[in-house]
């Protein structure tokens, strides 16, 4: 790598990318120089992320050419060859991390993916953690890291395999300035150790961009300009990159005036709108907010500055009464904040960090709803809504749904909604994150107007330094503590710094200095000792496969709902189905209206009462009693024996016993009918024999019915062996489908796109833990079938175990096959239930044998693994199948495995579309 500077590390020509109707990249051609820091600048949604994901090979190229590291990224062979040399960190805090895994486990997972042995992994992880100062947090779950730490962890994960090209997508968005500084220092040190490494990074912070070697300014899917920061400044004649960027924009997008000017507050009020005194919030051991105190006079714009996770949002929630403080007090207008105090809420407007409008209501409906909820007089609402529409310039979009609006307008709408009831305090939680500089300026002009003209007290949090400077006073917050509260000017001066950012960093360093000293283990340790050459990714690696298995089992263990589904779901459903689909009639209640009251009539009744099917209740007193008791479903059967029953039988006169049974449930009524007829016939046969002797009974022929396999004809014996195949299909398939769909939905699928894992390794790796789990379920269900349900097991256990093992390999594979086509978890769940349940219940011989099916159902039944396994299960339980009899089923199910996994592998995409 000596001629790095001469040849570009990446080159794109005529690159175009569309998402439906939206054009993300519009005919971009660009060559990116190697061996330096390249920055991609521009507001959100201009195509930066799309561009980077194409470079990383994570997204499929639609139009145009992309060459990275001297090869065509359309070529799958080249991609798999270079992916160990590229590291990609997607946008979003910890997007490629697994939130339930600890820091160490996350790193270990990536190490395995790149094929490092245990010792090698240990060494690299220890070095990287030391270099980034993360060593003390090795066992902390990624979800509980602060934003800055998440990004450092993401970087560690990206660096674990010594990449030649590092692609970072907004790595420092939402991270405090000190961590940001540390992050870039870390990158600088790594680059110093690996001079050949190229870094391409997207950023929304122009001040960061100033330290890069080469910049690409992007807007609306197009490249506005490229060059070193100095060149860009020179070309536009601007002083800062912010201004330079705005100057580069087409004229109509530049906005009216560039700077926001906040006039000084006219009269300083003595009344305090917001007061906090020793406000503290703990979640378990974790102190989110630690003794925070401040007082905000009426009409002030008070800024709250700090990184993600430093306690800003928690403090705001305590001020609004969403959270109860653990200690301390918060007062609004001198009243203690109380969640039940509706009066104060009328005087406060809140705009939460998450975009919080009803996306199913139009802009106008949103405004009206909020006006009503704030109890405004119905007559005043239309005028007020109009006023808001006017003031926040929403006239053109009143009929639109919020989701269809650009983010800048949505933020204005959120503010309008928060203002609708004319509050005296506005609490805004990071209102401008993700908003481009022009829209941000507009937004702040509105805030300024509200404060100065309407005397609204504004409490606003931000992580943009320029916004902080516009506030009357600011508080710097870090790790739950307020470091300082003062005017921006005073804070800057107090640390003898030139900029607010510099002062902020100085305060942070002071604060952190007390905790732990900086992470100065040199990074050289990371890369140097064994500079192994990049191995070309091998075609199949058990280690990569197992890394996914390990990941999956760790995640499953930490998700209570999925885990209980996996462990007790099958048992619960087995009880439900085993007992629910029950055609036995037992303990049916009956009562008798005996108008004869003789020994013969009592004998007749005793026949019924003595059977296990019927339970006798107190006798009936008449028809009215019968009606009432059958209506309340106390009785399922009523028998009437006519007067003179015994006498008529003795004389051979025609006589009739009346039986009324509840026909509401016809299936059961049919069975009941059968039982009564049978018992009546038995009784007659016995009586006949008593009266006329055996000869009288002789018929034409005798039908000897042998109920085979289940001599008592019990539902349980028939159902339980059939439930096992059903549950071993449905639950494992749902779990594997979810495991892939989750990765797609949460974004961690990106790791599969950009690492050397092959499709088969990914699928098999995901499958393995679920096969083990399904076999555990199988054992539990077998135990339950034999003990709880008391179903005799007559066949070969070994044969049945083998057959179920093959079966669960097929069913978990089926789940993977479904997941390949589906992106959301909810859809995955429903699709799997539909696609597995219908063939299993209807076409697999569960109720009607496959041999009584016709047409398509027959074909499906013949090939569907469940049909074979139903035969295998019934055989093993009831038909005394030995090993030899199971072989046919095992082979038939086994034949489906390569087909299912093969299809899944073929259709699984190794890139996003």
């Amino acid at each position: 790598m000596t001629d790095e500077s001469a040849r570009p590390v990446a080159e794109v020509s005529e690159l175009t990318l569309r998402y439906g109707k939206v054009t993300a990249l519009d005919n971009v051609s660009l060559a990116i120089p190697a061996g330096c820091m390249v920055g991609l600048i521009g507001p959100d949604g201009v195509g930066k992320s799309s561009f980077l994901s194409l470079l990383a090979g994570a997204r499929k190229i639609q139009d145009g050419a992309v060459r990275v590291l001297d090869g065509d990224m359309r070529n799958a062979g080249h991609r798999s060859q270079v992916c160990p040399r590229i590291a990609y960190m997607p946008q979003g805090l910890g997007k490629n991390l697994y939130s339930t895994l600890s820091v160490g486990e996350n790193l270990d997972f990536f190490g395995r993916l790149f094929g490092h042995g245990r010792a090698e992994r240990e060494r690299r992880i220890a070095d990287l953690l030391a270099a980034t100062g993360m060593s003390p947090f090795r066992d902390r779950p990624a979800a509980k890291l602060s934003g800055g730490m998440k990004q450092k962890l993401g970087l560690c994960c990206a660096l674990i395999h010594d990449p030649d090209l590092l692609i970072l997508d907004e790595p420092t968005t939402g991270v405090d300035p000190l961590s940001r500084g540390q992050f870039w220092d870390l990158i600088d040190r790594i680059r110093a150790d690996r001079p050949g490494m190229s870094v391409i990074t997207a950023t929304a912070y122009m001040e960061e961009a100033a330290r890069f070697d080469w910049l690409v300014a992007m807007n609306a899917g197009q490249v506005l300009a490229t060059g070193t920061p100095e060149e860009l400044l020179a070309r536009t004649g601007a002083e800062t990159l912010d201004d330079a960027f705005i100057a580069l924009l087409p004229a109509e997008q530049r906005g009216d005036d560039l700077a926001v000017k906040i006039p000084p507050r006219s009269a300083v009020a003595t009344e305090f709108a917001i007061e906090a005194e020793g406000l503290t919030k703990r979640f378990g051991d974790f102190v989110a907010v630690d003794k925070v105190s401040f007082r905000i006079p009426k009409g002030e714009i008070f800024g709250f500055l700090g990184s993600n996770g430093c306690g800003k949002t928690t403090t705001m929630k305590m001020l609004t009464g969403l959270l109860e403080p653990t200690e301390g007090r918060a007062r609004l207008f001198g009243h203690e904040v109380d969640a039940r105090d509706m009066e104060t809420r009328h005087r406060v407007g809140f705009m939460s960090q998450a975009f919080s409008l009803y996306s199913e209501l139009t802009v106008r409906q949103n405004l009206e709803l909020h006006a009503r909820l704030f109890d405004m007089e119905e007559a005043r609402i239309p005028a007020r809504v109009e006023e808001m529409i006017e003031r926040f310039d929403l006239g053109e979009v009143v009929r639109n749904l919020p989701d269809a609006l650009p983010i800048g307008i949505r933020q204005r709408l959120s503010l309008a909604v928060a203002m609708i009831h004319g509050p005296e305090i506005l609490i805004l939680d990071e209102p401008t994150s993700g908003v481009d500089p022009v829209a941000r300026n507009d937004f702040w002009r509105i805030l300024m107007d509200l404060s100065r003209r309407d005397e609204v007290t504004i409490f606003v949090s931000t992580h943009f330094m320029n916004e902080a400077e516009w506030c009357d006073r600011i508080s710097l917050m870090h790790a739950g503590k307020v470091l300082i509260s003062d005017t921006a000017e005073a804070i800057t001066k107090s640390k003898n710094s030139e900029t607010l950012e510099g002062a902020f960093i100085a305060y942070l360093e002071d604060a952190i200095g007390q905790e732990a000293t900086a992470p100065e283990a040199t990074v050289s340790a990371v890369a140097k000792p064994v500079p192994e050459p990049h191995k070309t990714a091998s075609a199949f690696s058990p280690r990569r496969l197992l890394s996914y298995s390990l990941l999956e089992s760790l995640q499953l263990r930490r998700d209570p709902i999925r885990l209980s589904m996996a462990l007790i779901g099958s048992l619960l459903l087995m009880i439900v189905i085993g007992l629910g689909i029950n055609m036995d009639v037992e303990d049916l209640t009956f009562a008798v209206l005996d108008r004869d009251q003789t020994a013969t009539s009592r004998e007749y009744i005793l026949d019924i009462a003595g059977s296990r099917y019927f339970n006798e209740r107190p006798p009936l007193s008449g028809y009215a009693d019968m009606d009432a008791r059958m209506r309340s479903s106390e009785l399922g059967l009523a028998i009437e024996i006519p007067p003179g029953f015994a006498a008529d039988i003795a004389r051979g006169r025609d006589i009739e016993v009346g039986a009324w049974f509840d026909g509401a449930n016809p299936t059961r009524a049919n069975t009941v009918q059968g039982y009564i007829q049978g018992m009546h016939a038995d009784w007659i046969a016995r009586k006949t024999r008593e009266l006329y002797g055996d000869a009288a009974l002789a018929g034409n022929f005798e039908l000897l019915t042998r109920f085979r396999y289940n001599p008592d004809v019990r539902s349980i014996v028939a159902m339980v062996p059939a439930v096992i195949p059903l549950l071993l299909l449905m639950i494992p398939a749902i779990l594997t489908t979810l495991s892939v769909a989750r990765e797609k939905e949460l974004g961690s699928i990106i790791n599969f796109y950009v690492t050397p894992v092959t499709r088969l390794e990914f699928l098999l790796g995901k499958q393995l833990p679920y096969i083990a789990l399904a076999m555990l379920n199988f054992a539990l269900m077998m135990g339950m079938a034999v003990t709880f349900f008391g179903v005799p097991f007559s066949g070969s256990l070994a044969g049945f175990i083998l057959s179920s093992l093959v079966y669960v390999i097929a069913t978990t594979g089926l789940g993977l096959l479904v997941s390949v086509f589906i992106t959301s978890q909810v859809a995955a769940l429903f699709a799997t239930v539909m696609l597995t349940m219908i063939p299993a219940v209807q076409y697999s011989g569960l109720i009607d044998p496959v041999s009584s099916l016709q047409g398509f159902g027959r074909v499906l039944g013949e090939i569907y693994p469940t049909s074979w396994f139903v035969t295998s299960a019934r055989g093993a339980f009831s038909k005394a199948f030995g090993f030899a009899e199971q072989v046919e089923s095992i082979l038939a199910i086994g034949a489906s495995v390569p087909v299912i996994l093969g299809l899944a592998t073929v259709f699984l995409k190794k890139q996003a579309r």
Partner: protein
Amino acid sequence: MNLKNVWNLGVKELRGLWRDWIMLALIVYSFSLSIYTSSTAMPEALNKAAIAIVDEDQSHLSSRIALAFYPPWFLEPRMITTNEMDNRMDAGLDTFALNIPPDFERDVLAGRTPAIQLNVDATRMSQAFTGSGYIQQIVSGEVSEYVAGHRAETALPVGLALRARYNPSLDPAWFGAINSVIESITMLSLVLTGAALIREKEHGTVEHLLVMPVTAAEIVLSKIWSMGLVVLLGSSFALIVVVQGLLEVPVQGSVPLFLIGVVLMVFAMTALGIFMATVAGSMPQFALLMMLVLLPLQVLSGGMTPRESMPDFIQTIMLAAPNTHFITLSQGVLFRGAGLETVWPQLFALVVIGSVLFWLALRRFREFMK
């Protein structure tokens, strides 16, 4: 408690639902097509049973017997040999195997009462029991017709007058239709409220509501009344138009009384839906939880099989489920024409269970917001 807020928020829910076409489709489907198909698809007692015949007699009578089995009750019989019989039954190919012995016809005519063997695969519950009854009848019919007039029979003159109440012709469609209405009520009242709450949580709008002058009870109640109203309207439509109108199922009791039951049931189930949503937290988890809760609720509450056939402990546990009482109530009112004097205990139980669930849901709701 500000009823105006409850009203406004409820209207908002309805507006939101109006734009959610997937949910709308689910509601329409559950209260119309689903009921229609599940009632018409209820199988008759015996359908296309697989039967094989081993004919060792090869006589006129034995071939008459073989011809007497035909669709839709039976598949055309397969003529097999004695050796094949066991294997075919082991492999589950035949449910019934009828073995007609040699010299059957001669023995019958000679009055020697020969035996025919009927092998039944009793692991196929749906066909085994009723099917063997049918076969008995068919074979006797053929044989007695064949030997008609040969011999007189002696029997006791005791008849049995069997009458099925509430569904005299034992039409399975009636039961299927009404059961399906009950299932739709259960499912939709859970899904609609649970999904509504989770959607708000995922969009961060609940948080937004809680800083406004709106209490948690108002939010919960607004979801309950709006989604409950949808289910109530849907079930009235299903009962009056689909069940009574299209399917022509006679309803014995008072529809208003049933609808009062629906109101209470929906109250209890929507509260349960909110409770489950607060436990699950996200849509996929909610969907999983639904599977674990909905199926036992529907199957073990007596809708499919009578409660008395279940083990005692399950019967006791299920007394806590609103479904159990609602099913008793609706079967009583709709099939048996029961009035308030009969079903008041169920109504009372629903009120109690609903109130407890509502209280639990409300308690969890605030916690869930943190």
